[in-house]
């Protein structure tokens, strides 16, 4: 069987592309699907994108206009900037954005660090009670977080952290999912030989972690950081209870936008657009990684 490279030389780039396509087809096993498939997928895409576009349309219109035309025309009107300015003047948007950034970044950073440390230990080090402890970690994933919300609130009030960001950051510093995820990844991705080589060279355990395990964990760590960032950014219940309206994150500020005014949908949707835009931007940059992260996790989990 001739390779793609030889086809390129012998029969030109067109034939090479065709050969590559043939090979890809054989690998994924199947013919190219017809238009029915693409129509179905386009429909799915439409359903997942329209609500966002709808929010954008309402954000660029006005309250009286929304009352008259419940179904917005697909062409946006020009009121987006003035609605955004009204969002700025009615809720502390910038401080909410800043709070969300601080919380999401610190939660992602600590989760990745601590999960990778624990994952390294569970995947590659030998110690008493390892299996039982790992099973325990996985078991904690089944505990609903709401079960502890009342005492958590009491403790945070006692520590004088109510209304302050550490109250949201501390509970998110490490996650059972993260530990499990990194354990799974490092079990396969980090060969024992590398660890032994580092040990023979006189590395302490923490140096071995830093110079061998951490670099090997990088792809999975990046995905964990992404997922942690998203779940932290979109979290509402706990920040809403502990931070309150005085020092909100973005989702809490959105709630304020809805309750503090006569229900002006153009204003609310401008807030929705503002709060969602950063993650949509992140999605366009890193969506591919998110997709492969979910798919990799599914096979292993």
């Amino acid at each position, binding site marked *: 069987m001739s390779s793609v490279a030889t086809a390129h030389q012998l029969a030109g780039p067109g034939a090479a592309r065709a050969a590559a396509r043939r090979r890809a087809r054989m690998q994924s096993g199947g013919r190219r699907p017809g238009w029915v498939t693409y129509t179905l997928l386009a429909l799915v895409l439409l359903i997942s994108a329209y609500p966002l576009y709808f929010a954008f349309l309402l954000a660029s219109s006005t309250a009286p206009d929304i*009352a008259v035309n419940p179904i917005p025309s697909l062409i946006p009107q020009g009121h987006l900037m003035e609605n955004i300015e009204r969002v700025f003047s009615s809720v502390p948007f910038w401080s909410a954005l800043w709070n969300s950034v601080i919380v999401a970044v610190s939660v992602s950073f600590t989760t990745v660090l601590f999960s990778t440390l624990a994952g390294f230990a569970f995947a590659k080090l030998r110690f008493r009670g390892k299996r039982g402890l790992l099973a325990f970690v996985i078991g904690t994933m089944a505990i609903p977080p709401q079960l502890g919300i009342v005492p958590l609130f009491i403790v945070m009030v006692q520590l004088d952290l109510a209304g302050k960001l550490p109250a949201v950051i501390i509970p998110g510093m490490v996650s059972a999912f993260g*530990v499990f995820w990194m354990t799974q990844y490092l079990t396969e991705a980090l060969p024992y030989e590398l660890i032994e080589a580092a040990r023979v060279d006189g590395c302490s355990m923490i140096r071995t972690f830093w110079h061998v395990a951490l670099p090997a964990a990088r792809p999975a760590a990046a995905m964990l950081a992404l997922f942690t960032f998203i779940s932290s950014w979109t979290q509402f219940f706990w920040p809403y209870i502990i931070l309150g309206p005085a020092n909100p994150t973005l*989702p809490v500020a959105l709630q304020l936008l809805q309750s503090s005014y006569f229900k002006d949908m153009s204003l609310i949707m401008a807030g929705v657009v503002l709060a969602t835009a950063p993650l949509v931007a992140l999605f366009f940059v890193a969506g591919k990684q998110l997709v492969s992260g979910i798919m990799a996790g599914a096979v292993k989990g």
Partner: protein
Amino acid sequence: MSRSAAGSDLTVRQRLSKLDVATAPYVYIAPFFLLFAVIGLFPMLFTAYVSTREYGLLSGDAGPAGIDNYAFVLTNDRFFIGLRNTFSIFLLSSVPQMVAAIAIAAVLNANLRARTFWRMGVLLPYVVAPVAVSLIFGQIFADQSGVINAVLTSIGLDPIGWHSEVLPSHIAIATMVNFRWTGYNTLIFLAAMQAIPHDVIEAAIVDGASRWRTFWHVTVPMLRPTIMFVVITSTIGGLQIFDEPRLYDSAGLGGNSRQWMTIAMYMYELGWGPQRNLGRASAVAWILFAIVVVFALLNFWLTSRIATSGTPVARSRKKARA
């Protein structure tokens, strides 16, 4: 002399190194267990304690309450309304979502052009916060000047009370959950489908099974562990639902007759609402936990039964036994 000095120096280092090897694993896993003790285990047990106390949000602990908090909750109509709503929304979101996710995954599992584009497309809603999803769909499902009711009236049908009526409000909230999570679960199912060995599918086709039969009798049974995983995780999440119903209207109480108030909202209302009663809120938390555990086990049992009864292997075994 110098030799023995070097030797003893080495043993100290060796000892340190041994200590390092012995303690390092525990040090590395310590952050998780410490944090879990502080924000997981302790609150869980303390919730049980608070649930047996007279405990105000502002007044603090005011003595024992015995089972009064549980008695209050379990004799309160609102608790059962919340229970009904939570289960109704959960069923309306999990069942159609599972079916849709498997169906879309089957479509995506073809040899597509621009694969990554389509996969990213289904995942887009995942990055939208539930709060934002709720605000958007709250308007799409608005009773007056909402998109769906406008479409209904324009084709001559009666508008539906998406907020004022029980079942329609549950459907609207379930739609929000489905919007955000179907794509995510689709990718999980897609990955599971791609992990099915080709020869199994090919064997079915060679045996003359139609595409549909192959899908139903080979692919779906082989997705069993994945289906169970998705069902369990969506049970744990779904029974705690708060964000979407909380923002479905501006009052956030779950409607005039609490028609879409969930258990989590009821807990919030007891603890942080006008009653400011953390004791009662804790009782609700424990009841909710018990329900989640029972329901997760039930789901596990049910899904494993349904999934096995579909596989050809299980059937032939049953036949053999008969």
